[in-house]
């Protein structure tokens, strides 16, 4: 399920879609000072989810324009993007990563494996990210398309905003207007 023809290009934007994108960007701008950092965590995926995540940075989707960035350091992250069925050997590392992220934080489980649809729990695999981490957003798909991921990120931003009512890290709140 790679991005197909229904993906909006830059020159033919769907009206509501660009509307949603602008809204998302404004939220991030206001709530997170124009930058929301994502830490990806591979808990045993087959790497196809990762390919789709990587496509998010491609010009078609370009999530950076919305204010999302990837970071390797959990200390800098706001959002934990988890793929894979959570193999048991990785449980401790996943827990540590979650603890290392400063609050407010949100966890997004991505792909059929993470949702518990592929591997049943056995001595090697938890089979479900929710067994180890408090998941806020579930994004189905095998793999989920970039657009689905974007939607999931939008939902996650909403959850983060709920967790941090009125919390902003910048003084001026009119930055969103400048970029639009």
């Amino acid at each position, binding site marked *: 399920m790679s991005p197909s023809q229904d993906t909006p290009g830059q020159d033919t934007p769907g009206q509501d879609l660009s509307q949603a994108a602008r809204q998302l960007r404004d939220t991030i701008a206001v709530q997170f000072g124009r930058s929301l950092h994502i830490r990806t965590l591979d808990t045993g995926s087959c790497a196809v989810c990762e390919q789709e995540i990587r496509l998010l940075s491609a010009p078609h989707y370009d999530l950076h324009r919305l204010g999302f960035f990837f970071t390797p*350091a959990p200390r800098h992250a706001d959002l934990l993007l988890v793929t894979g069925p959570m193999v048991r050997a990785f449980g401790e*590392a*996943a827990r540590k990563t979650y603890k290392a992220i400063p609050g407010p934080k949100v966890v997004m489980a991505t792909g059929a494996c993470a949702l518990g649809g592929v591997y049943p729990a056995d001595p090697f695999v938890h089979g479900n990210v929710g067994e180890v981490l408090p998941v806020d957003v579930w994004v189905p798909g095998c793999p989920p398309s970039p657009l689905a991921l974007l939607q999931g990120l939008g939902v996650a931003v909403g959850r983060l905003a709920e967790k941090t009512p009125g919390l902003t890290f910048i003084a001026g709140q009119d930055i969103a207007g400048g970029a639009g």
Partner: protein
Amino acid sequence: MNPLDIGYIAAAAWIAAALTGLLAGRTKPGLLACCTLSGTGGAAAAAGGGWSLISGETPLVTPGGGASTITGGPLQLQMTPLAGVFVALLGVVAVAIALYAPRYHEPGRGTAVYLAAYNLALLACLAVLAAGGMVTFLVAWETMSLTCYLLILRRARRDDVARGAFWFLALSEIGFLLVVAAFVILAGKTHATSLDAMAARAHLVTGGWRAAAYLLALAGFGFKAGLVPLHVWLPEAHPVAPADGSAFLSGLVVKLGIYGIALFAFRLAPVGGSWPGLVTMGAGAVTAAIGILYALRERDIKRFLAYSTIENAGIIVTAFGAAMIFHAYRQPALAAFLLLAGLYHVANHGCYKTLLFLEAGIVEHTTGTRDMDRLGGLVHRLPRSAVITFAGTLGIAALPPLNGFVSEWLIFQGLFQGFRTGSHLIAIGIVVAAATLGLTGGLAIYAFVRGFGIPYLGMPRTRQAAAARETGQPIAGPALLAVACVALTVGAPVMLAALSRATRTVTGVRLGPLLLPGKLTVIPAHANFSAFSPTYLTVFLIAACAVPLLIFLAGRPRAASVSVPVWDGGIVSFKPRMQYSAMTFSAPIRVTFDALYRPDVSVHRASDDDPAGRSGPVHYESQVTPIFERYLYRPVIRAVEGLADAIRPLQSGDVNLYLLYVFAMILLAYLLGAV
């Protein structure tokens, strides 16, 4: 009463200590009494040495009148300020070891002999330094070598001990012969045996003979001082000697070689022209660089320290060489300054190297190993040792605010003024030596970050290291030396004033007022070059450390904060194996200087035997034979052995053959009688 009389007190105390040790060393009270006497002698020597710096040269005395039966010549004694520096160091080292030895050694027969030999070695060292005549000097020198040989042989039945001791003895004897030759040349040409008379009549010796005597002395004393390529005994003998024995060897015996070089270079045979200075300086610079490069690939703490001693001897000899050059180019102030800087480094190195060897002994005592890669985490188990070792490490790595920094700074300031010689070629030579010392200094920091970090920091790599305990360890000796290191930094102006008196007797330059115009500020020989105050620097650095601490204590963050574990990359648990090992830490240097080390590397994969299998253990072995051993000593040893093999058929052990020899000899005698 003069400093020499105090020297007699020290000598008497050491003789008493040697006798006590020999007779009563098998019991605990005897051991304690011996060490107390030894320490008393050390305190006396320190006082005498210090006093001689203040009071100046004592007159030459010949106790027992003319020819003494012991030495076969007149016993001539004299305490000079130049030797006084070394005597004071001898005293400090002896006191530190006396505090250390009673807890380090078990009472017993071996200890009894060891302590007797050690105290005699102290006496012999004092005699070398207080010798006013050539015969006294040589007899004392040989006694010192032999007693030190006994020190190294303390655990003669263990592996490699006999080997290390033999290296020491063999090279000492070769060096001794060269020193004898040097003295004989001077004595023959000046018709004098007392050092004073030799120095006074040095002008009678022609330049060529003087140069020959100096070069022989440089090589002869170089064996003791550990100049490359004559240094081979240090890394062989140091690890096998008891900790206080190796501390004594490195802290003092090596310094006597340096004293010998200084004695010939500045007092007995000052050579005209700049080339002997260039030779000395070049030898020193090469020694320093090679010493520290080999130190970097040692895992054995004591071998590592032994190589570091070679490096420091190189630094001191470089300073002396440059002083000789400046002397030849009519820059007496700079010559005296560099001699002074070298002497300062002698005192510094004597303190911190003794400290580090004593601490290495504690580590070996409590963990049973000297291998850095089997230690680790000792800072939690030996906290006081860690603090003391850290002070010594800062000193030897020449990091401010400790004492090594002061003397190395002085040496560099002297070398940087090489342009004052007026000769471009010489100036370039001096700058190259300074650059080599710069490289050495950088590598020394690297080496001692490794030398402290691998054993003391991190996690214990073995169960023995984890079980290390500090209780009952002889901390007092090294602690005294740590205090001495700090005193040598804060008290740098006092030390410089005292040392400038020693250099004044040798070079005739009044360096004191030039060096210390404003009490606490040091000016290296020429006022328009640079200035520095070790005392203020120490105070400043301590204050600089205190400021952030005060800010932290006064202004703690008032906002709510959360404490979470350090982000470790999600690793489940750390294993000691994950740490840097001593060998991986030095890998960049080992790879860069591969051409020098020329390691014999053998790699064996399990899959080599089984073409189908692609995994399995890999056995990697890298062994380094030092180049001098490989290309200089081994061929000589092989030639000697070959010669011995060629002669061996004479001694077949066959009685008939021996009867034939007897018959042939008798026949020959008859024939000769008949003719």
